[in-house]
């Protein structure tokens, strides 16, 4: 055999991937050690060592505010989506007949363009024309200015996220629940186990890997959220909904400080890597038990 066969199949894809992923990452890394303002036509790269990183971590209060907002956003949305997802999936799994139809309808929010989801909710949150304040008005409550009020903006964005991504959790949990073998369950019932016991000792261990995968994927995606928040609030009012991805975008494409933005995006990369690695370690540790 002259050449390993997988090379024939693999190389076209590898070429594209290497060119468009490895190279940008290396470029980004080098750029993060320099200062370069794109809007200044005469400017070139100025080497600054770790100054960008030091600046981000010690001299940039908005960075830490973005970290805080991102952390709140991530934890709240993923937790709510998980709990709702599991409960609703459980309810659906008890149905025999309409599952296909339910799945088709449920898929809609998460397949809709996130930017459009942003539009939809902007429409619903509109203080005068929106559905939400209309219904609140019908029962006698004066609705707030959801997206414009600093105290409600973050919650409003999170609700939109929950609407968009709970179906993701539902689908995965449903697939996992449907894969639980019936024999152990029937044996448990014969032995007189209560529903809760059945759930804790038979269902839960079986679906645990699926739960981990779902949580991991959703956590990573939630961390990266950009489109939805950009369309809804652009990070405002003030910086109450400014997550890391938006803040990084601002530095790169509003202030055009490419070196600083590159450093910040590397900080994000490291954070995602941490989340993913910890998650994977947990998965392999679990599966070895």
């Amino acid at each position, binding site marked *: 055999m002259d050449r390993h066969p997988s*090379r024939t*199949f693999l190389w076209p*894809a590898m070429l594209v991937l290497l060119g468009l992923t490895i190279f940008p990452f290396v470029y*980004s890394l080098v750029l993060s050690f320099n200062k370069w303002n794109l809007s200044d036509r005469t400017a070139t790269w100025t080497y600054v060592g770790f100054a960008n990183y030091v600046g981000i971590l010690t001299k940039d209060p908005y960075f830490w505010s973005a970290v805080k907002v991102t952390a709140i956003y991530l934890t709240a949305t993923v937790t709510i989506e998980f709990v709702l997802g599991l409960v609703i999936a459980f309810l659906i799994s008890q149905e025999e007949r309409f599952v296909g139809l339910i799945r088709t309808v449920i898929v809609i929010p998460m397949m809709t363009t*996130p*930017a459009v989801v942003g539009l*939809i909710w902007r429409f619903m949150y509109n203080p005068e024309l929106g559905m939400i304040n209309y219904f609140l008005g019908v029962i006698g409550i004066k609705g707030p200015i959801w997206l414009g009020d600093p105290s409600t903006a973050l919650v409003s964005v999170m609700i939109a996220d929950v609407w968009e991504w709970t179906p993701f959790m539902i689908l995965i949990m449903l697939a996992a629940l449907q894969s639980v073998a019936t024999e152990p369950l029937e044996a448990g019932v014969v032995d007189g186990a209560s529903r809760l016991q059945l759930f804790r000792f038979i269902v839960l261990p079986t679906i645990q890997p699926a739960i981990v995968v779902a949580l991991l994927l959703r956590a990573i995606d939630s961390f990266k959220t950009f*489109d939805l928040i950009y369309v809804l609030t652009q990070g405002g009012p003030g910086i109450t909904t400014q997550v890391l991805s938006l803040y990084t975008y601002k530095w790169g494409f509003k202030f055009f400080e490419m070196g600083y933005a590159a450093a910040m995006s590397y900080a994000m990369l490291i954070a995602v890597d941490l989340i993913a690695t910890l998650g994977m370690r947990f998965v392999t540790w679990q599966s070895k038990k």
Partner: protein
Amino acid sequence: MELFSRGRLIETVVRRAILILVLAFFITPVILIVLTSLKTRLDALASPPLWIFKPTLENYVHIFVSYSFGLYIRNSFIAATGATLVSVVLGTLAAYGLARYPFRGSEGVSYWILSLRMAPAIASIIPLFIMLRTINLIDKSSGLILVYTSANLPLVIWVMRGFFEDIPRDMEENALVDGCSRLGAFFRIALPMAVPGLAAIAILTFLFTWNEFLFALILTSRSAQTLPVAVLLFMRETGIDWGNMTAAATIMMLPMLVSTIFVQRGLVRGLTMGAIK
């Protein structure tokens, strides 16, 4: 255990009621948008909102005539189709190679491909922007297709590898013994068997690309601008033109609404990168 006891009946009724509420929650906003797109400008701004109105298509006409919406649809279509074609072709080939002919570093390569999915778009957008600018592919569909392909390849490879690994090798091995080339075995035996999974992942890739926002925002300006970004146009005017915008949003949702029925089969697999089948 009795099946038709009173308790069971109440349980079913309550459960169905909750599920109906849940479904209503997920679908009402979408219906709202579609309905609003059919209202006249005046009706759309009515407060309290009108439930009974005379439907009109004037918003749809308007966005094509005054906002060159046709251009954006064309751009989105070109970008999505192009990226899907290239990533499915290259990705399926690569997946087959990884599944059937693993080599010493292939697990490592696979995990590296998996890790690409984790990276935030914002991290690669800066160098990609500069790269495309250098080779003069900014605001061109070919530039977008290139970038989207690299974004979609990891998913295609990872999921298709799973599908190929599920297919037993016997038939291909028989064909190889009979003198068939490896590529021939791929095309004539493995590929036809992977078609259902392929179809699902192709649709998913198309949808992801159709929905993509950030890359399109930064890498296009006027000629190659795609639908998600174009939607922002309706917001830059004084106030927001809800009639037009909801019409635009409805059109953007069409591919998704049409294809969800077909994606059911490989959906969970595609979403979880093959982790759950």
